[in-house]
């Protein structure tokens, strides 16, 4: 703190010392968004494999307005399904991890490098020339 603390802030800090904070909910909030981003990435590459897979992913997003349609006004197509599945994974995982970790103190500084690394990897995985060799390798290995 760069400034003097008021009596009110001092009493707040004393109250905090008596009632420790758990970092679990903050970790749950950030783990879940990363899982949502990975869902976007994985569903995107699955939809690129074939027309059938694209339709399969698309079907999860039919409830989103503008998800289907042709002509000049277009539609967002299978992007709707990718968004819907990402929202589902994000929301569900946030709820589950929050409930599991709300009374746990997880090291934030240990999580940060993993979080940042995870974000870097998922961002690079949206750049086709970088990710496509890995996808082709996976197709080769798993048929």
């Amino acid at each position, binding site marked *: 703190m760069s400034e003097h603390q008021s009596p009110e802030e001092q009493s707040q800090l004393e109250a905090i010392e008596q009632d420790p904070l758990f970092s679990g*909910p903050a970790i749950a909030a950030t783990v879940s*968004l990363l899982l949502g981003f990975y869902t976007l990435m994985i569903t995107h590459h699955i939809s690129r494999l074939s027309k059938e897979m694209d339709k399969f992913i698309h079907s999860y997003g039919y409830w989103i307005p503008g998800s289907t349609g042709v002509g000049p006004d*277009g539609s967002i197509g299978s992007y709707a399904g990718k968004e819907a599945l990402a929202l589902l994974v994000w929301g569900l995982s946030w709820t589950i991890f929050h409930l599991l970790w709300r009374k746990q103190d997880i090291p934030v500084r240990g999580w940060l490098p993993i979080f940042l690394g995870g974000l870097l990897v998922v961002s690079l995985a949206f750049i086709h020339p970088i990710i496509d060799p890995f996808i082709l390798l996976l197709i080769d290995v798993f048929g």
Partner: protein
Amino acid sequence: MPTDQYLQGQLAKFLVRTQAITALCILLALAGLDFFFPTNYRLKAGIHGITSISALVLGTYLTHRAYALIRGVHINFHSLRYWLTGAAAVNFLGALSGNWIYMRYRGQDGPKDWILANVPAFHNYLMEFKEFISLFPFPLMLAGSFILFYYGDAIRARRDLTQLVGILILLAWLFLLLGFVAGLVLAKLRFV
């Protein structure tokens, strides 16, 4: 606190806000003029432009607050909570309007068709990247807002958590800027 120091603090606060408001007003012309473009999709284009530029300016303003969080100096958490939630809401509107204009992008004889016929790399590499990373700032900012509301003022005692919020703001800004530049390049290449 000495009077001079207090006045300089107030001056800095005033200048930061003035800078952000001035930048917002000038940059809004970039998209505001879309409303007068000769296309049937001017409304969609203008709304997406205005929400995304507003999100970028708000995000940039919040980076000033993020460095204070990371340094661990005294900050007004009450105000930051609402600024960050507001920025998350504007980012949500940016993503929503992005979905709206994306329909025309993919529509018959739309920008996608033209780009694929002329410069396919801009769709296959740039747009395929942009359409996903542009969705990142909203969840990042929402997570930051959640953390600030959940822990309340007690978060002051946990430097690791305040730093996490600061980093979430900086990350949201990075993805905002990436999405903004990619979107602008695509719009310059072939407008809706």
